[in-house]
């Protein structure tokens, strides 16, 4: 269950390594798509409309079971609409399964949209506090790491200037610095690393490696099989909401490639 890399790197004191960080038991997710716009209260009260609006159910995941060991790095591949993002949302806790059970240890930080919580009119300092608390940190934990965040983001003298005066690169660096400032237990990434310049990408990759060495679990969704092979020890192939294959990253990506080339 535990990948060799994780058991080497995780210090003996990190007790969490003894059980999976994420456990997904026979999970199904059913989205409910509305075929028509919602009805009006007026029509409903006047009795001109029956209760319940026209809803089509769409099963995005069907009976998926999965355990991710603490410190493991798992890549998720599959074509569009195969349920990759839904699986990430379950782990990130923004969605509850329709059936089945999801268990997660520790704090999940999604590196999906790093700057979504930022506000252009606020200073860098205020945005750090806002995004940090959004990721579930306490104010005092952010204060204690403020210098490190500012260093990593390389925004130096701009810390008290409004965010709208920042360059795009600075905003991105700040977003990444806040998300990874404290040690998240589970990192969830949805193809977010294709942004920023080459040097910053390398810096991000180094920081992620650093977090993994300290026992963070890492889940990456990507169409880029090369980065899955490079970053992940294990890969999961989702097909129409079900697990098609799971195993060493090289094997699973190879099988996926073979089918799509055929």
């Amino acid at each position, binding site marked *: 269950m535990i990948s060799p890399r994780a058991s080497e790197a995780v210090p003996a004191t990190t*007790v969490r390594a003894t059980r999976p960080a994420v456990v997904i038991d026979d999970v199904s997710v059913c989205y409910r798509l509305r075929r028509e716009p*919602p009805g009006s*209260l007026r029509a409903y009260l006047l009795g001109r409309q029956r209760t319940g609006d026209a809803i089509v159910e769409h099963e995005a995941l069907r009976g998926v079971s999965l355990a991710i060991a603490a410190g493991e790095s798992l890549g998720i591949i599959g074509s569009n609409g195969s349920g990759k993002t839904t699986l990430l949302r379950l782990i990130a806790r923004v*969605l509850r399964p329709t059936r089945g059970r999801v*268990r997660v240890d520790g704090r999940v930080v999604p590196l999906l949209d790093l700057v979504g919580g930022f506000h252009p009119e606020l200073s860098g300092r205020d945005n750090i506090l806002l995004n940090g608390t959004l990721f*579930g940190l306490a104010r005092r934990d952010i204060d204690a790491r403020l210098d490190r965040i500012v260093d990593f983001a390389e925004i130096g003298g701009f810390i008290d200037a409004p965010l709208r005066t920042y360059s795009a690169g600075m905003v991105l660096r700040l977003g990444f610095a806040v998300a990874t400032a404290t040690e998240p237990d589970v990192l969830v990434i949805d193809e977010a690393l294709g942004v920023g310049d080459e040097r910053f990408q390398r810096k991000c990759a180094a920081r992620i490696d650093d977090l993994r060495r300290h026992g963070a679990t890492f889940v990456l969704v990507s169409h880029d099989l090369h980065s899955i092979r490079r970053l992940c020890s294990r890969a999961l192939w989702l097909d129409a909401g079900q697990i098609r294959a799971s195993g060493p990253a090289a094997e699973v990506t190879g099988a996926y490639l073979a089918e799509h080339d055929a």
Partner: protein
Amino acid sequence: MKRTADALDAREYDYDSARRRSPMVEEVVELRRYRDLVRQLVTRNIKVRYQHSVLGVGWSVLSPLLTTAVLSLVFLTLFRQTAPDYPAYLLSGLLLWNFFIQTTSTMAVEMAGGTDLWKRVYTPRTVYAIATLATGVVHLVLAMVPLVALMLWLGIPTGAAWIAAPFAIVCVALFALGVGLTLAVLAVRFRDVLDLYQVVAGAWMYLTPVIYPRSIVPERYQWLLALNPMTWFIECFRLPLLENTMPDPVMAGLALTAALGTAGLGWWAFTRSADDLATRL
């Protein structure tokens, strides 16, 4: 070693989708965990609002004052209302009423619509409702500065009964939370709820003694005012401020009951449907 691992595995996971306390209770526990975020959201709302308006903080103060000036002129000259403290009566009513309507409308829109962020980062949803409510309370308290100035200028005596004014603010805030969350739940289900609310709010204001004195309403319609919770809140707010009288215990009791009841209803309705909202597209 094996034994330790077993003992560890018996520990509960930090998040377990199958472990469900009542959603109402769970939301309160989670909200407490995210209290620093609420504080940051309120700071953001207030800073953003005042940073770019030319008048700065003055804006939330000036707009009700202007309304008060115009309406006072109309009432004092046209309707010959003799009460000399009418401007203070009007302003105190308007402040509380505006707080209620703005907070409930904003909360309903935000909570029914959600944002893209909700699909990516977990937070208890009510964080945003509480932040909107707290922002409204801060604006209300700021807007009380000119109210006090106006009262001093009109020579209205102040006294110890003032300590009852925060009670009225707490009541109307709880009531607004309940109404706002209930509206949000309805707005997801019915597309015209928010438009209807604007119409209802317009009528509701005239059934509440906000701009007119309660005494000008004919005896046979008084019951309409007496059954309206907003009447209770506004009276509990005005009596201590303008007449240095503690609110009647029966009315205070009614106000608190209505506030707690409505807040509980809205909290229940919203938390039980919050998961359901996430799977609706």
